[in-house]
């Protein structure tokens, strides 16, 4: 079974600064998908960025980018030019691409990001 670990329960960053959230995972599969989701106080889980394991290039979405280290099974999220609206819980998640299985997401325990002025 796959597991996802987020070792930083809380992080804080000043507005306009850069912060990196860590995530490691364990799997025996060679192909899979990794995601970062944001959950603000409104509770709605929002997809921030995704990475396909067979792609060596790190995914980027505007101010959000990942550092995907497949051999180390590490998948960190970098937020540049942090904004007050980035304050939320951030969850790292894993999904197997295997056919015949449920398309379930396995989540980490989350990192609460605070953004200060």
């Amino acid at each position, binding site marked *: 079974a796959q597991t996802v670990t987020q070792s930083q329960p809380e992080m804080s960053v000043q507005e306009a600064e850069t912060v990196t959230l860590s995530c490691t995972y364990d799997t025996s599969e060679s192909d899979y998908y990794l995601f970062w989701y944001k959950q603000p106080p409104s509770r*709605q889980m929002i997809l921030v960025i995704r990475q396909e394991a067979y792609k060596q290039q790190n995914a980027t979405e505007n101010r959000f980018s990942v550092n995907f280290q497949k051999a180390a099974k590490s998948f960190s999220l970098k937020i540049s030019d942090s904004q007050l609206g980035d304050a939320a819980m951030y969850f790292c998640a894993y999904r197997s*691409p295997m056919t015949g299985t*449920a398309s*379930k997401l396995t989540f980490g*325990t989350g990192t609460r990001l605070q953004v200060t002025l």
Partner: protein
Amino acid sequence: DAGVTQSPTHLIKTRGQQVTLRCSPISGHKSVSWYQQVLGQGPQFIFQYYEKEERGRGNFPDRFSARQFPNYSSELNVNALLLGDSALYLCASSSKGQGAGNEQFFGPGTRLTVL
């Protein structure tokens, strides 16, 4: 276009009661998944339904059941409620049952409190 909708928003029940939670997927999406998120933890997978058939089930007791209707909406039922069932229940829809590009879009959740 409307996103994933869930009802009710909040619910308070007592131990031993039964509860039904509802989810409507994004128009055109045929798959619905249910997750339980206990306070302070990440969501845990409960069920996935695709084309009205169960495609997967997480490690939850038989008190949890679900179904998907011809219009692809879904219900999650929990019988004999326990205090530990208190959680945020999230519904996610996707266009396909599995595979590449099968992104899941989440609803706002139903907060269930069991007293």
